[in-house]
């Protein structure tokens, strides 16, 4: 877009603004209606996660990870326990691995449902949001059935799980999947092919692949730019190499590769793939196996450090853990995918109109709890 040189105006979006998905302040320099510069101000939700971790034992860190990305707590737990297990060299049995994958993928569906729903809401489409939340609710019911909590689960523990699957979980999940699968097409028609939605998102906020890699953008946002990169395929952890699924990448169906519509569409496709993985994991779920079998009595990793990453719904979730051989981490750093996704905002949103900025921000699917930690 061309740059018009008029009088600049500084405008603050947030900290309390519904479109910022939490408490975030965007200081926007506008030139008429064209955005010339965006400076995000973070830290309103900073809860000293990393400092707290140095004062608690390894088990006690798990509830903190829940509270970082509160929309995908299962995958936050998952990433952390995978890191500690690698550090301590613990192997967990197959039943635990399968249950973890089932939970992580259900969580991915729930998180993407909220992300796409809220994205529509940002652009004024209220109805799809209600439909998606209705179905997300059913996944949360499944989680509640398993571990009693609806949002912050503390379900995956180092070397195991807090509870085994309850009676009737498998049937309930299969029921849900049978009900849910046709709904994905409905969402696609309801929101994805909606004329107004397409006009507001296609060709808007294009993120080229080089920019995405250089800015450390990962997950669905990176894949929407046409990069086939998914840690579940490219650097498999847990038992993801056992499952057959595709990695959807942006194709620019409605506009250009890497535009906001692609980011929406990749998420929707990922929901379909996650459904596939859950079905396979339930099929292969071993009948026996104690979920507490490999849990160490005392978690005291050997001296050393590890950087381990897993694929959360928002991208590469990395944990850097430095252990000094005691039962509290000497340093724990969470490499948050939403943090890097927000970092690219100024680069891809500069030059667009004011109304587009909210569309671009919504398409990046940020969670402030994870950015600020």
């Amino acid at each position, binding site marked *: 877009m061309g740059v018009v040189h008029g009088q600049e105006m500084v405008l603050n979006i947030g900290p309390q603004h519904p479109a910022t998905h939490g408490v975030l302040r965007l200081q926007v320099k506008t030139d008429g209606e064209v955005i010339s510069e965006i400076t995000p101000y*973070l*830290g309103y939700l*900073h809860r*000293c996660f*990393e*400092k*707290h971790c*140095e*004062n*608690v034992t390894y088990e*006690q860190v798990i509830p903190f990870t829940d509270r970082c990305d509160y929309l995908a707590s299962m995958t936050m737990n998952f990433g952390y326990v995978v890191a500690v297990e690698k550090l301590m*060299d613990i*192997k967990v049995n197959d039943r635990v691995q399968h249950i973890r994958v089932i939970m992580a993928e259900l969580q991915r569906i729930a998180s993407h449902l909220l992300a796409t729903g809220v994205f529509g809401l940002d652009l004024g489409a209220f109805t799809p949001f209600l439909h998606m939340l209705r179905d997300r609710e059913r996944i949360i019911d499944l989680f509640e059935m398993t571990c009693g909590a609806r949002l912050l689960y503390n379900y995956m523990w180092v070397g195991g799980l807090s509870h085994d699957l309850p009676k009737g979980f498998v049937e309930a999940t299969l029921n849900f999947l049978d009900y849910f699968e046709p709904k994905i097409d409905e969402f696609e028609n309801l929101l994805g092919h909606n004329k107004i939605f397409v006009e507001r998102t296609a060709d808007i906020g294009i993120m080229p692949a080089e920019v995405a*890699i*250089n*800015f*450390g953008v990962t997950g669905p946002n990176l894949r929407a730019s046409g*990069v086939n*990169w998914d840690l579940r395929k*490219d*650097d498999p952890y847990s038992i993801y190499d056992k499952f057959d699924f595709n990695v959807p990448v942006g194709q620019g169906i409605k506009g250009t590769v890497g535009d906001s519509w692609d980011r929406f569409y990749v998420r929707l496709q990922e929901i379909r793939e996650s459904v596939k993985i859950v079905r396979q994991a339930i099929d292969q779920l071993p009948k026996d196996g104690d979920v507490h079998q490999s849990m160490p009595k005392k978690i005291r990793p*050997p001296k*050393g*450090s590890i*950087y381990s*990453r897993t694929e959360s719904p928002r991208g*590469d979730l*990395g944990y*850097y853990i*430095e252990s000094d051989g005691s039962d509290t981490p000497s*340093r724990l*750093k969470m*490499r948050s995918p939403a*943090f*890097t996704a927000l*970092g690219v905002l100024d*680069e891809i949103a500069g030059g667009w109109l004011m109304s587009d900025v909210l569309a671009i921000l919504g398409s990046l699917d940020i969670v402030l709890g994870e950015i*600020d*930690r």
Partner: protein
Amino acid sequence: MSEDIQVLIDDVVAKALAGDMDPINNIEDRVTRSKAKAALVKAKRSQPETEIKSKASEVSENSDVKTKDTIEHIVIASLTKNFSNFLDGEQNGEWIQMKAENWFDIAKHLKENEDLYFDSLQCNTGFDLEGGMLESRYNLHSMKHLHAIEIRIKVSIENPNIPSVESLWRVADWFERETYDMFGINFTGHRDLRRILLPEDWEGWPLRKNYEEQETYHGIVVPKVKEGWE
């Protein structure tokens, strides 16, 4: 402990020292497995130098295989051709300890060299080594060659200056701001180095080990982190 079990343990520990952990993990009996692991830890502790030597000899045998063990050596070999005096002390094979002086040029080489091509900076974090030293750690990854390394740069707490790599990997912009915010490491050449998560007028560097919170902030009492959470 019966003799059979002792023989088994010796066998798997020898294999584990050679880098193959599967035999230990495949032991059915939990008690034997934990005994073997304990023996392994003991063995590793008693012979750290020989272990590094054996790793180095492995590398020279199959240097074309790019595994996690050998990538450090490939990187060092490639850097030695172009730079001198960049390593800081003894290398242990798990990460590369570098000096801060020509870090920017080295980073540029790491990113642009065709054989290394570390196009993505995965993670940057600080670490307080105590005893007056801080460290900045970089986890680099190549999406083309699928290899990863960790680089550590040590600086003194009185003069914590490290060249910024923010213009190479733009993701480092916010990573370095966060490390500055938490540890007070000064990244020279960064275009916009200010606090990111904490308020701009906050005092002190919270993730240093000897950090003490300020008493009040704008007249509000700052709650202290309790010792030993229960």
